[in-house]
């Protein structure tokens, strides 16, 4: 069960004098939700950006499915099985829910030279999109323009778009932000379901949710790792309590 899908070693990112991420190492295993918590500005989103290849690290390496991908571009990493969601919803608001997912699925089957083939006739792409829409509970709003969805549905759509690309590793940046209690429950159920086949990195502020779902927790403060381990151990850690959890 301890299949490591993504490994970061001493990942560091400096912006001039500021060290946003300072020698962070972590492992994501299939079947686990690894939560990264920390105050605003602790470097969580920067860490996701480095892991997904959106920004280059100043130092350190990233390994995906056993291969060193430190020099790979973001699209190449995505092709290799790395999916991510954004803290600020990043979808195609003008397209339908289905087309959002279909276009994401297309990334796996690009065939850009086949200019005479209709994109919406690609059975594999349509099926992958449909499966992702079903899985995330968006089937009823399949044809709705994505920009008109509720906030919670948009967050679900973002996960659906990730799933349509058939990733192995999911990096989720605050998927629960701004969600109501019911929506949160549904999203946590989905994550629990997805856990079996994926390695999930979850950046989240909702501590109740984190302790409900996470198998491992890493606490970041000022860009570096303060503590990392099983939820109970992290919760009991006095340093973590002083720095972040407070009375939790």
């Amino acid at each position, binding site marked *: 069960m301890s299949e490591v899908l993504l490994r970061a070693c001493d990942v560091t990112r400096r912006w001039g004098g500021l060290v946003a991420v300072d020698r962070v190492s972590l492992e994501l295993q299939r079947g686990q939700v690894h939560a990264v918590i920390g105050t605003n500005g602790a470097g969580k989103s920067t860490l996701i950006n480095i892991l997904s290849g959106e920004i280059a690290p100043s130092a350190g390496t990233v390994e995906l499915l056993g291969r060193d991908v430190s020099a790979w571009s973001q699209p190449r990493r995505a092709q290799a099985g790395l999916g991510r969601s954004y803290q600020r919803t990043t979808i195609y608001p*003008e397209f339908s829910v*289905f087309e959002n997912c279909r*276009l994401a699925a297309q990334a796996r089957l690009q065939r850009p030279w086949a200019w005479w083939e209709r994109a919406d006739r690609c059975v594999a792409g*349509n*099926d992958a999109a449909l499966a992702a829409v079903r899985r995330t509970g968006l089937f009823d709003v399949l044809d709705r323009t994505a920009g008109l969805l509720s906030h919670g549905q948009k967050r679900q759509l973002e996960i659906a778009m990730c799933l349509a690309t058939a990733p192995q590793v999911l990096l989720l940046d605050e998927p629960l932000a701004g969600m109501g209690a019911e929506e949160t429950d549904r999203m946590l159920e989905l994550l629990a379901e997805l856990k079996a086949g994926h390695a999930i990195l979850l950046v989240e502020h909702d501590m109740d949710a984190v302790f409900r779902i996470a198998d491992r927790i890493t606490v970041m403060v000022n860009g570096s790792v303060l503590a990392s381990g099983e939820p109970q151990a992290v919760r009991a850690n006095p340093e973590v309590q002083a720095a972040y959890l407070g009375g939790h």
Partner: protein
Amino acid sequence: MSAGARSSGLLAPAERGKALFVVLAFAALALYPLAAGQFGIDLVTKIMIYAIFALSLELLVGTTGLVCFGHAALFGIGAYAVVKLSPEYEAGSVWWLLPASIGAASLYALFMGSLSLRTRGAYFIMVTLAFAQMAYYVVHDTPLGGGTDGIYLNVKPVVAVGGRTLLDLDDPKTFYGVTLACLALVFVFLAVLLRSRFGRALAGIKVNEQRMRATGFETYPYKLAAFVVSGALAGLAGFLFAVKDAYVNPELLSWHLSGSVLIMIILGGLGHLRGALIGAFAFALLQEFFKSEAIWGAFAKHWHLGLGLTIIACVALLPRGLVDVPGQWRARLTGRGAPGGAGSGAGA
């Protein structure tokens, strides 16, 4: 399986309306020479060439979201290529001159695109302008381009197979037909292209390039391919323009023309192929109208003023372009703002 069923349905009413409009427009263009005199045929031929040029830019601006302000360079290079490569005292062959013309424009598009696509937004606009100005000054100020006076094409190229001339491009009506066929081919090509995976990827890049990259699309090669295809089509338009007038001058590469073609597609409505078509006709006909001394008398020499004010009014009143006129009417008739709300009951 149900996914397949979703996409194979009949055209939605809105789609049918658009298709009908395009078919009627092309039918009208096909019948036009039967009724028109020489001036009319010459004018509409010129407008159709501009329409091809506008369609080529629509692929970049309307579809991919790349505002290119140097497209005239590609048009002009296509035009100059015919004249420079034609033999001086005999007719060149279209079979070689047309690919050469399109090839030259594509090659410059590849050069221009590969460097300018490293920038974004306003910088992209400025860098494409700079590349166009470079080409302009090469043509304008070096012996290569023949300077301000331009160059004449002594003998128009011929369409011949085995020594037999199939089409006489010197005949205005034949040339009208050839231009119309090119316009129809370009339109259909782009319509098919936009439905393909490539076209959908370009649409995705326009809406959200960051998400495209995160999903696994290397967006740079896509944008570069769009730039080169667009350049090739602009080269085709340039070829037709040079053959039509048998004359080229540096103004074909000037930023005025780059601006005009941008105005055409904005006027017609960005994001729609028929917008480029409508825009080219609207722009050229407005220009003819304000230039007409029969209507305006001596004031006709200030035609820029009338044209400019009309364009400003159009853009202010129809921010989505002339293609949105039916939508606006519908909204006004039903008293509703949302175009999707009205008239969609039958489809649902």
